[in-house]
């Protein structure tokens, strides 16, 4: 950080129709929101000066998010409440701004620090029951490893590592709501829909993942798990 810059962390949603946006589209939209909010944003130096901002881990097209994050550097400290209000007014409702707070420059970057994410996966379909899904998940997780094919490449996940918390299956439905916490990072991030799709195919039931929502992004620090804000 250059001296005299203030790092504002913003928590926002990616909901409703906006879940069909790509990460790049969300980034661009929020940068435009920040300019519309007339925040005194810092500009990078160099050949192609642009707004100084950094975004959290990407969400795929189709996946919603309840608490997503980005950092923006300001050249003047606008009171957080005012920045929140201005951002809210200049952001489409489906990317609703939830919270802002200044964070220390020593705070690690969002992408580096975020190592876990919680999801809610809705599974629908004729034959889908909570018990059926729970059973199938026990089988899949019991095997300890999951092969996922994406874009012609196979990736193997160690489930003991990739699933740091117990998977919880809701009692109502369909759609049955499944809560999954996965680890993300350099070694790859397990997509919760991949886990559920595997479970569905094991259980041989006629069902499908109907929606995926990332409800939280988490930072692990010396054994403590916390939100970025």
């Amino acid at each position, binding site marked *: 950080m250059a001296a005299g810059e203030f790092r504002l962390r913003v928590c926002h949603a990616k909901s409703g129709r906006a879940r069909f946006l790509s990460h790049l589209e969300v980034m661009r939209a929020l940068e*435009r929101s920040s300019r519309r909010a007339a925040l005194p944003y810092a500009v990078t130096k160099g050949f192609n000066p642009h707004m100084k901002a950094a975004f959290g881990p990407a969400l795929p*097209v189709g996946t919603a998010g309840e608490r997503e994050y980005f950092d923006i550097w300001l050249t003047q400290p606008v009171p957080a409440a005012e920045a929140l209000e201005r951002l809210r007014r200049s952001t489409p409702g489906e990317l609703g701004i939830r919270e802002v707070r200044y964070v220390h420059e020593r705070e690690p970057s969002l992408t580096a620090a975020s190592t876990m994410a919680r999801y809610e996966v809705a599974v629908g379909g004729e034959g889908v029951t909570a018990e059926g899904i729970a059973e199938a998940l026990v089988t899949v997780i019991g095997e300890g490893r999951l092969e996922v094919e994406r874009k012609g490449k196979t990736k193997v996940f160690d489930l003991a590592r990739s699933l740091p918390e117990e998977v919880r299956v809701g009692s109502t439905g369909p759609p049955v709501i499944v809560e999954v916490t996965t680890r993300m990072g350099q070694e790859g991030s397990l997509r919760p829909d991949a886990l559920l799709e595997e479970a569905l195919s094991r259980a041989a039931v006629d069902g499908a993942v109907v929606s995926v929502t990332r409800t939280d992004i988490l930072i692990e620090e010396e054994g403590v798990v916390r939100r970025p804000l």
Partner: protein
Amino acid sequence: MNSDLYQRVEALLPRVERPVRYINSEWGARHASDGGHRTVLLYPDTYEVGQANQALAILYDRLNSIEGLAAERAYVPWVDMAAEMRAAGVPLFSLESCSAVADFDILGITLPYELTYTNILEALDLAGIPLDATGRAEEHPIVLGGGPCAYNPEPVARFFDVILIGEGEDAVVQIATAHRDAKRSGLSRSEFLDNLAGMPGVYVPTLYRPAPGGGVEPSGSAPPVVMKRVLTDIGVHRPPLCPVVPYMDVVHDRFAVEVLRGCTRGCRFCQAGMVYRPVRERSADDIVRDVMEGLRCTGYDEVSLTSLSTTDHSQLEEVLRRLTGRLEGSGITVSLPSLRVDAFSVSMARLVSGGRKSGLTFAPEAGTQRLRDVINKNVTEEDLIETVSRAFSAGWRRVKLYFMIGLPTETDEDILGIGGLVYRVQQAAREAVPASDRGSVRIGVSVSTFVPKAHTPFQWEGQIPTEEIVRRQEVLRSAMPRKGIDLSWHDAEVSFLEGVVARGGREVSAAIEDAWRAGARFDAWTERFGLAPWRQAFAEAGLDPAAIASRSYRRDERLPWAHISSGVSERYLWLERERALSGTTTVDCSFDGCTGCDACGTLSVDVLLGGEARGRR
């Protein structure tokens, strides 16, 4: 009535490419309340191609600013989505309210380019609207066309109830208002259309029939010649200051202010330069005010000062100095879409480009001075070399040059001339940069094939045949320097089809329909283009496409577009043709006095520079 189709649309989205095309809810989208008169404006291509179209953005803004009128947007779904929609029985929908396009009062379709015509039929079919204007019933929307290709409307005339010729910001509001009033007073569709045919700029194709000598003529009291609509001062309407800001990465994804309309440099191949006369500039004060307000409202990090020839604006330097001053330190950039070949343009580009040295673009168009004089492209080789040297000494490393082949009177010598010119540009560029940097010098060369367009001095000329296009492209390739040149050219078959559709008359509409039925759509997309459905369609319609594209007309023959006028007289166009053939150039009337094209007198308008009338001299 719950007309919202979104639930049904959403169910299809996980299965299609780029669902962001169909979700609406962008910043700046207007959601009119129910009850008023509703127009849906359709761009006949995908969302990302059409979203930034400035003409539609202007009409959207105008209609939504008027009490009791409302406008929404629609685009053509990509082939995957169209298949899903047909399978699920979901009709073509508007974005804002996600209602069926067929439920609107007016369906406005812009005509940007000939190779989008099959998409118009795809859109009508998906909407459940009969393709033929004569097949439509009272409940169907009025299908209204307009835009650049309206200057030769016949190939698509059958599919439209109304085609507007010329500038739409006032005319479209008048048409929508007239339609609302007609509905209120219980007029039938045909009564409304009969009345509308008297409005300036309005062409109602069903009121015209083929004329014995070619072209069409009114069958009743409709005007024999429809004169284009034109604004005397574009400053009376501010540009859209809070346009829709897309989520998707669209073509021309930036805020835009139209700084001038028209161009009177007089290039003889250029339809836009003839049909958008005269030149009318927005004043420097208005431009600066509107740029700043639009940037605040949209949050864009780039603004483009658009027009056919922005470096011709008489106050450009002032505008750029004021804008760069105001935008200092904001990371927001100003861009100029095209540059004139001169030192002034390079210094203007330097003013706005800051550190970013993306490429510069110039259009010498032809390879020899003789041919440049024929087409009235008033650029000399010295100008070009000098301009390129200046740009490369100022830090640029890339330049793109646009040329055309197939121009009237062209010989192989002219084509070889392109190669020679490119070589000398390359040498000049290399000499202008430090030796260590020579490797990074890139010269892009883009070569299109000339299509003789309606309402230009070359409208009487035929297009060269496809085999000849291919041969000349071969000559060109052999003439190009071997290294450091990125050469690209337009597919000969695409240019041929453009020629057929741009030069044809009403008979071509049958082939467009057949081609669409045979599966042609998104013809402007390289990966989708194929001549096969078109060949089949021409055969079924009993047409020889080569004869249509390459047909030359005599002065006394009636042209297929003779019932449409841009205000520039046929007399003047013919005179310009004769001057072309004798290699005589014509000056720019905005700066050097009226050259007598008749547009100003016929249309009762005047050249407006910096917001002030210059007066015809």
